């Protein structure tokens, strides 16, 4: 058990792939603060940084599999006349889908945005499942969305969608023309174009950091509270009961935050997308 609560949210490598595509396992020597890891060879570098298959990466795969099964099962159970054979999970799933469609996509994307509902649904449920999966207090349940690479990839996907769908819906020339507001004096345009061009990058960067930071912060708070139960020598002290109760309370709050962050990510993504598809708004 590390004494630093932030360690709780740090990713743990399982294995890596070497430069000549063989699987490398870490060799851990020592324990606690003195633990050190050695790799039998040089891990594959992607964009100049060593790439590892980690706990959080593994969690992402598990969560994706769960989402795949849950969503397909829910789809099979959704009926026109839903009196029988619909469990609580399916009803919640259905309500969330309806919520994303009616209260997130419709107001921001308009009636024409129906085609993009599946994209936003995938974002919402993948993030929601990841956030909630990380809250299950088991050793192998890590929060994929507490990894900046995961949130970064999601944000890059949205960045791509902003440009791609914007150009697809408006046409390439209209897209670049509508990037800046109409009716501006010509002199300001050289200033406005770089600013408006940076806009979507900044927005997506904010999306990435917001989700990542929220997930990290929640888990750090829980880990900090749990750490209060330990004495300086690492044995359980009298503080363990209040520490446990407080961490349970914060965990309940985190369930709310998990849903909220998934919602905020999806809502902002749909707002950005709506602005790029319909520039008049």
């Amino acid at each position, binding site marked *: 058990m590390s004494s630093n609560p932030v360690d709780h949210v740090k*990713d743990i490598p399982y294995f890596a792939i070497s430069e000549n595509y063989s699987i490398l396992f870490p060799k851990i020597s020592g324990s606690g603060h003195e633990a050190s890891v050695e790799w039998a060879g040089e891990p594959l*570098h*992607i964009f100049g940084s060593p790439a590892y298959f*980690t706990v959080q990466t593994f969690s992402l795969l598990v969560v994706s599999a769960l989402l795949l099964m849950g969503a397909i099962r829910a789809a099979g159970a959704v009926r026109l006349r839903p009196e029988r054979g619909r469990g609580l999970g399916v009803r919640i799933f259905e309500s969330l889908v309806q919520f994303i469609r009616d209260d997130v996509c419709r107001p921001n994307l308009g009636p024409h945005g129906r085609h993009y509902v599946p994209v936003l649904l995938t974002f919402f449920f993948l993030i929601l499942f990841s956030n909630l999966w990380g809250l299950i207090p088991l050793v192998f349940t890590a929060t994929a969305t507490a990894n900046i690479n995961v949130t970064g990839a999601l944000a890059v996907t949205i960045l791509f969608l902003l440009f791609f769908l914007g150009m697809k819906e408006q046409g390439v020339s209209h897209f670049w023309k509508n990037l800046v507001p109409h009716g501006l004096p010509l002199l300001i345009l050289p200033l406005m174009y770089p600013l408006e061009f940076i806009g979507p990058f900044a927005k997506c960067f904010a999306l990435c950091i917001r989700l990542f930071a929220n997930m990290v912060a929640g888990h750090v708070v829980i880990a900090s509270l749990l750490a209060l139960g330990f004495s300086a020598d690492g044995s359980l002290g009298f503080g363990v009961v209040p520490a446990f109760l407080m961490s349970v309370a914060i965990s309940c709050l985190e369930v709310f935050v998990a849903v909220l962050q998934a919602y905020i990510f999806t809502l902002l993504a749909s707002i950005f997308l709506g602005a790029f598809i319909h520039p008049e708004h």
Partner: protein
Amino acid sequence: MTLLPLLHFNGVAFLLTLAVFIVLLIILSKTAWGPILKALDDRDDKIRGDLDEAEKARAESERVLEQHRQELAKLKADIHKIREETRALADQERDNLLLAAREEASKHIEMARTDLERERRQAIESLKATAVEVGIGLARKLLQRELDAKSHRDIVASSITELDQLYSKAG
């Protein structure tokens, strides 16, 4: 340390997320989001259709209710009229019956009175005859002589006249 720094760029996590997202989007669009969204749309349409139907049915039922109400009011008026007519008819019938009964009764009374009168006359006649017989007998016995037939008849006639006068005075 076995732990990776928080801001460590991990190409596997990044690329895997992209891949997972694309795979999920493709598979779920076909197998989950499509059917669920379609089912929700169908349900929305169904609910909207049902509401329209219900609205229509309500208007129809209100119209029928109003019609029935009018018919009911008309029927009530009719019933009232018929009852009044029947009552007038019954009153008249009763009066007629009463009148007939009264006439019948008075006829009976009249007949009874006539009978009585006749009986009385007969009684008087018979009394007269008896009185003549008695008077004659009495006279015969008193006079102890036999009158001739003519004087006999005269005496009787005068006696009857006297008796008539007597009875008319009495009656």
